[in-house]
């Protein structure tokens, strides 16, 4: 799939449950597409298991290291010893609420990564996703992309996706359904 289409799919939330039915979604594509390098690396770099998103906050080794994403591409960043979570954008939630969610995700990631590391099952990995408030008021993932290789998918499901599903999200309002797009890496020095 061409990277541009993947970009649209991921950040345009197309093909998934709409964030706000009936509204034009295209503008959000632009709003959330800033750290495109991440996604390009994900979609083009399937051959490289050591894919990493490169920002000042999310350090990496290997082929992707030459690519730089400016720090301002993230609205907010939460760093923990075992991982980093970057907020790409949020809709229908305040900046504070979005930052709180990102901090909570980073905390969960940290706790989980430590646990998984103890089991010797932690692999360096990365994920991008868009989460909205689901019907039960918890996080619901509409789009997701996981870096390839090893047990990365298992780590992502356990340390990011599962905690997100179990986290309360801000309630939907008449303006729309709260949504946030995040990117995260873990297991790197």
């Amino acid at each position: 799939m061409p990277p541009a289409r993947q970009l649209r799919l991921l950040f345009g939330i197309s093909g998934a449950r709409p964030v706000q039915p009936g509204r034009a979604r295209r503008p959000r594509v632009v709003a959330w597409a800033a750290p495109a390098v991440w996604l390009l690396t994900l979609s083009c770099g399937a051959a490289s298991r050591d894919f990493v998103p490169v920002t000042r906050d999310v350090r990496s080794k290997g082929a992707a290291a030459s690519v730089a994403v400016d720090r301002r591409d993230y609205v907010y960043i939460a760093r923990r010893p075992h991982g980093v979570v970057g907020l790409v954008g949020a809709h229908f939630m305040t900046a504070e609420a979005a930052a709180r969610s990102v901090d909570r995700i980073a905390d969960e990631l940290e706790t989980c990564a430590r646990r998984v590391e103890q089991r010797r099952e932690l692999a360096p990995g990365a994920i991008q996703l868009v989460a909205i408030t689901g019907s039960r008021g918890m996080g619901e993932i509409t789009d997701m992309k996981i870096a390839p290789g090893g047990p990365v998918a298992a780590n992502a499901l356990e340390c990011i996706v599962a905690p997100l599903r179990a986290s309360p999200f801000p309630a939907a309002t008449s303006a729309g359904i709260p949504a946030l797009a995040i990117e995260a890496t873990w297991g790197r020095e």
Partner: protein
Amino acid sequence: MIDFELTEEQKALIDTARRFAKERIIPIAAECDRKSEFPRDVFKAAWEIGLANPTLPAEYGGPGLGDLDSALITEELSYGCSGIDTSITANTLGLTPIKLAGSEAQKKKYFGWLTSEPIQVSYATTEPGAGSDVAGLQCRAVKQSDGSYVLTGTKAWITNATLASFFIIFATENPELRHKGIGAFIVHRDAAGLTVGKHEDKLGQRASDTAQVMLDGVHVPAAQVLAPPGHGFKVAMETFNQTRPDIGAIAVGVMRRCLDESVAYAKERKTFGTAIANHQLVQAMLAEMAIRIHATRLLVHKAAWSLDKGIRDPLTSSIAKAYGADAAMQSALDAVQIFGGNGYVKEYPVEKLMRDAKILQIYEGTAQVQRLVIAKQILG
């Protein structure tokens, strides 16, 4: 709109479950089968990464996955060993009645327990004298003045009985009332009067634990009454409706393994100067196996998708289970056939697949009972 594309999350789930089957289940499956022993460490590992109790709601700390997600996991784990998977998936059978009929307090307590510890659960309708005829169960539930019940009777063929921390027991206030007398009760393993019988020495799925459960005046506090007499039968039937697609998914896993093993063997084994894969009659068996996999998977996905959408579709649910079970049995027979004499010995994996497949036509409603359910839907 019809959309057969899996989401990235579902693809990640498959990847995770497939790796788990390859690394944790396949290497020990033959040994567990030989010893007739369920590997509890495998259950714990599956629980840790969210492959156990997939449909346990997220608001109670569970993975919060849908029925289609659950079917995807089940297919992969069953590819590794359907016996081990059956004991893992039996937890879904045990938690579904609580999802359907549990009070908020019961959900908090038991779902909380399931998410905080890698415990196993049993679901018990069957008795020595009542299997297909669920409404004919005899286990007695006698109401006490404080709203609690006392249960007396015997449950047979209960998956996970030796391992379960709690049981969902179906019992009746009066056997003559048949389905109108049945209630559902949550019974803790350490309840006074509850004993578990000997581990059944089975033909197949030997790695799953199966035993009798004896209830001798077991006191069940009111807080553990899931459905009072008169309301339990519906819970039992709706539970089966929701879990039957998982049996179809087990069938798909078994069939995929049959096909993979058969293809590999057919390319290797030579007769009349050529690989048996070049004989058209062998090719026909392989092709039929592939047909059955695809047909069953579509049925399973349709049934699970309906459940996820809140659409009641017991017809597809039963068809997925009935067709899948028969299809798996036939594929396993064909796999043994393709292996010839080697298919008939324990050195090769297909004899186990054949033994394992048979139970799919028996538990959660026999092949005949599924036909009755399907015919009832058709005839109205």
